[in-house]
């Protein structure tokens, strides 16, 4: 199963919302039941479409949080002035209907065959596709070494806290909490910079593969930093989420 190419469907499929779980005060994971779902690769996303009773429609893209082979799930962060994310994180209930298109994406994807070592850099909700990659790695018993650098405003905003608190063998997780830190915090407490990358990232000589995902400015700054450490630009994959709820 691993490595099978999955061709995305062009058509919209009806999805029924399954169990939902609140990861943080602003972030919720939703299971989606989609008859005919073709499966997906780690790192891909889906387009979601909502239709109001006056016919108004809104579409957004959300990264798939689950690994290939697991039930489809997305993780959504509520944007304060958003139109779709407040609905998905506050209003929606199991049994509600929405439409899904996908899976989408052939660039920001990882399979065990892609190799490593892996440097995963997440800014806020940018951790979602990286979590799919981590789960896929576990489920395929891959031993590719991984370092995850996860930048979050505070510890309460860390998504998948429990899971990341018990990382699989060969995975190390480093947090940087940029706005507030718990009492006694001895970890990083600033935005990712060249010094932090130099401390945390694999040396370029190890031929690492990097995946950087999050707000645009985070991605620009981290990817430039990795290239500055000697990572070839072609070994740094980027996915920019635009502005997020700051």
């Amino acid at each position, binding site marked *: 199963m691993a490595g099978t190419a999955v061709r995305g469907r062009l058509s919209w499929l009806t999805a029924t919302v399954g169990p939902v779980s609140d990861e943080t005060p602003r972030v919720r994971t939703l299971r989606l039941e989609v008859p005919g779902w073709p499966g997906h690769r780690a790192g891909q996303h889906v387009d979601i479409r909502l239709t109001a009773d006056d016919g108004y429609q809104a579409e957004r893209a959300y990264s798939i949080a689950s690994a290939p082979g697991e039930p489809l799930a997305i993780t959504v962060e509520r944007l304060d002035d958003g139109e779709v994310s407040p609905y998905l994180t506050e209003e929606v209930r199991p049994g509600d209907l929405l439409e899904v298109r996908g899976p989408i994406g052939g660039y920001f994807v990882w399979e065990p065959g892609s190799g490593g070592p892996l440097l995963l850099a997440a800014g806020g909700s940018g951790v979602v596709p990286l979590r799919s990659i981590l789960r896929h790695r576990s489920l395929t018993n891959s031993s590719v070494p991984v370092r995850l650098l996860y930048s979050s405003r505070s510890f309460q905003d860390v998504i998948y806290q429990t899971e990341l608190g018990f990382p699989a063998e060969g995975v190390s997780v480093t947090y940087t909490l940029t706005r507030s830190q718990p009492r006694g915090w001895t970890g990083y407490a600033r935005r990712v910079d060249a010094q932090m990358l130099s401390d945390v990232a694999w040396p370029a000589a190890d031929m690492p593969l990097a995946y950087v995902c999050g707000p645009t400015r985070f991605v620009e700054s981290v990817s430039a930093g990795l290239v500055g450490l000697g990572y070839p630009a072609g070994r740094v994959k980027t996915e*920019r989420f635009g502005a997020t709820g700051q």
Partner: protein
Amino acid sequence: MDGLATDMALDDSAVDGNAIGGLLMEVFGTEMTTATGTCASCGAVSQVAELAVFRPALGTVVRCRSCGSVLMAFVRIRDVTCVDLMGLASLS
């Protein structure tokens, strides 16, 4: 055009070609984020996933990261998507 490249890097409203994977599949009939585009203006070569994408609700504008010129534009008017690829020298 260093100024424009810097403007794009600092601009949180800009996303990249990953975000329009669905739109591109709809328009081209296939996965396009790994396709390679060549800018007709400055010759820069890039994977579509890495191009700068702006999505004001009026339309989707895809720009070259090196020189800022418009490579592709998509506007949806009355259920028809108009596609302009004139800024690309090639797309493969």
